[in-house]
């Protein structure tokens, strides 16, 4: 009855006929699976590599801090701080002198000579104030030298073959420190003397004449601070006399000095500090500036291309923006130095721009220069991803909105952008990740001053030179001893950077998942 089945049998009887296909398919599966696996493996290996090289840092840093304590550097620190404070006071007095000269030049017919003559009492005052602290400064410098010598001796001692072979005992810090600690015996008398000197000089200052009341007020404030400084002198003594050289350095200290330390100081005569905060804040500040430019530009361009532009405009704008991503970052950096830095300097010197905080810029290369160049790096990323997100908004939303009488812009604002929000948030986050990791541009354009930007100066913070996590690695990795503390500190910075970008990526993925539109 039934017709004979002439089609290819699906029950394979031959031994290889069907198997071959299955094997081929399995190979393809293995290939793709293998690729995915390799990606995961590499990620893991990088993580392990960074951690292996970097985590050793903490042990070394602890030893470093231990030497800092035992050799007495820590002991001298309060004294150095006082020296520094005194220095600051002197510097501010000089600033006042400069301003006084300027005020006199503005308000009177006096020539340079006459102005200098008028200011001679102030000059004398400043010199006297400087001299008044001479014994303190002298002591500070002497003790610093002593402590540094002890440290050098200890390090040399510990680097000798005998010591390493266990043939020599530990370095005798106790004896070495004796001359250092002996200072405590003379300190109280020194404090009294310096305090009396300072008071005398400061009191004489009330006879000085000032060009205007603002200056007079500023000087009065300075005098009060100087008096307070004199009164606080014994504070250092208390700190130094209760100092305990044998207190062990806790492990967490090695971490906290790294994570919250405000100094990154290497190859220094005194003490090396590996505090990541200046670099982290520098990186974040530069990235923030970059995003402040790139987010409106990137999203604006995406909205324009996706919602408003004609086909021809699209065909022009899209490749143009995507082409920016193809420019080597060293070229952008070069452009930043030569063109943007210079333009920024000239622009900031135009008279009517001076109201802008931080203008005229003190340094041609600063966070703003680097941030603007970095914005160019972030724009293609943000643009492309945001455009994708907008593209993924169902066209029916747009139709529905327009059919209700909305204008194009109302539709973009109230329907399209909210619907694409998750994708846009993740575009911004990925742009941030891209910018934080960028190296060449910041190295060339950020000014590379290792200091936490001074956020108390408001918007001026943007025109300060900064250094970054990526920049410091690129700059210093070539000159460090492999396996040394500095080398490992750089790896820790790298590890931190890696963790930071991983976190950002994770957040970006979560943003997409949490805010994803229900499919219809």
């Amino acid at each position, binding site marked *: 009855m039934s017709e004979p089945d002439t089609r290819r049998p699906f029950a394979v009887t031959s031994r290889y006929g069907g198997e071959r296909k299955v094997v081929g398919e399995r190979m393809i599966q293995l290939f793709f699976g293998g690729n995915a696996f390799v990606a995961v493996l590499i990620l893991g290996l990088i993580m392990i590599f960074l951690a292996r090289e970097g985590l050793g840092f903490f042990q070394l840093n602890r030893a470093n801090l231990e030497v800092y304590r035992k050799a007495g550097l820590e002991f001298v620190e309060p004294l150095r701080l006082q020296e520094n404070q005194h220095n600051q006071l002197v510097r501010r007095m000089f600033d006042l002198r400069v301003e006084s000269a300027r005020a006199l030049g503005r308000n009177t017919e006096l020539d340079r000579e006459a102005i200098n003559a008028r200011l001679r009492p102030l000059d004398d005052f400043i010199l006297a104030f400087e001299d008044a602290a001479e014994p303190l400064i002298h002591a500070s410098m002497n003790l610093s030298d002593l402590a540094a010598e002890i440290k050098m001796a200890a390090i040399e001692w510990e680097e000798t073959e005998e010591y390493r072979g266990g043939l020599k005992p530990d370095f005798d810090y106790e004896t070495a420190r004796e001359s250092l600690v002996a200072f405590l015996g003379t300190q109280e008398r020194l404090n009294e003397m310096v305090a009396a000197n300072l008071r005398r000089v400061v009191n004489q200052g009330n006879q000085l004449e000032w060009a205007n009341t603002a200056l007079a007020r500023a000087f009065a404030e300075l005098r009060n601070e100087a008096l307070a400084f004199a009164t606080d002198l014994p504070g250092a003594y208390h700190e130094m006399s209760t100092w305990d050289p044998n207190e062990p350095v806790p492990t967490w200290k090695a971490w906290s000095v790294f994570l919250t330390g405000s100094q990154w100081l290497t190859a220094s005569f005194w003490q090396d500090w590996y505090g990541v905060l200046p670099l982290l804040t520098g990186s974040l500040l530069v990235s923030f500036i970059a995003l402040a430019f790139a987010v409106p530009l990137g999203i604006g361009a995406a909205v324009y291309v996706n919602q408003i532009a004609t086909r021809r405009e699209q065909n022009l704008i899209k490749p143009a923006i995507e082409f920016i991503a193809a420019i080597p970052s060293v070229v952008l950096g070069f452009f930043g130095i030569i063109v943007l830095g210079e333009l920024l300097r000239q622009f900031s010197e135009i008279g009517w721009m001076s109201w802008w905080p931080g203008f005229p810029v003190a340094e041609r290369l600063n966070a703003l220069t680097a941030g603007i160049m970095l914005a160019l790096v972030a724009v293609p990323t943000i643009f492309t991803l945001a455009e994708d997100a907008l593209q993924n908004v169902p066209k029916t939303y747009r*139709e*529905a909105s327009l*059919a*209700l009488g909305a204008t194009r812009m109302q539709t973009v604002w109230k329907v399209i952008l909210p619907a694409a929000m998750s994708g846009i948030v993740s575009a911004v986050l990925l742009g941030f990740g891209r910018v934080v990791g960028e190296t060449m541009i910041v190295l060339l354009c950020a000014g590379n001053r290792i200091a936490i930007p001074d956020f108390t100066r408001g918007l001026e913070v943007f025109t300060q030179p900064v250094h970054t996590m990526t920049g410091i690695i690129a700059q210093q990795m070539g000159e460090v001893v492999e396996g040394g503390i500095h080398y490992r500190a750089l790896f820790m910075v790298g590890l931190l950077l890696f963790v930071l970008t991983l976190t950002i990526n994770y957040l970006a993925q979560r943003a997409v998942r949490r805010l994803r*539109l229900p499919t219809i």
Partner: protein
Amino acid sequence: MDPTTTESPSPTTPAAASADAGRPAIIEVEDLDFYYGENRALDGVSLAIPSHQVTALIGPSGCGKSTLLRCFNRMNDLIEGAERTRGTVRIRGVDIFGPEVNVMELRKRVGMVFQKTNPFPNSIYENITFGLQLQGVRSKTRLDEAVERSLRAAALWDEVKDRLHESGLSLSGGQQQRLCIARAIAVEPEIILMDEPCSALDPVATARVEELIHKLKQEFTIVIVTHNMQQAARCSDRTAFLYLGKLIEYADTQTIFINPSDSQTEAYVSGRFG
């Protein structure tokens, strides 16, 4: 032009097929040609759609029903290369392609419901108030009122009154379509265009929407595109049959289905082609 028309032509549109006797025409189409680039989608279409009636547009796929419908609120403007080359569409006597026409205002008076349900991914409440908020209505009481009135008019109120702030996408397909109708009603249009509003719905949901359409014609003029002959027969007063961009026949629904004068119409409504 249309051999079946027996009524006298309306005074404003002598060439157009006239509206139902006694009912003034609200939309008058005259000799309309429409192109997508080189491709002609409408070819000399003339018809007059009476107010407060349901007018169905039928015809085989690709004959230009959606194109004609989307001319009425100028949604075709969005398509690049789409162009009306000849003829006029007048709504309440005003040429909607005229230079002084504000398309946004036009669309507020001519609402639209789409084949694919498309509530915004927001709450039911926000879906309905969207159009009013565009018009600058901020008063909470006015918005609340509008939501209840529109949902009642769309026969959805009882089902959703306790979940107004849940996502519009959490509703069933049929409910979503009624939500879209409520959204269109909320801005108080005169005319509602519906492009195959039931094609994605099951028979029960379809029946409810049809019932709704029947009720809505008290307040609105409705133009509906449908592929479903029973639906056209059940819920429309007038029916226009289009074929290859031309209006073949336009008359009372009963006439079209029981006693069509054109052989193509007869073939189509009896299911012998299309």
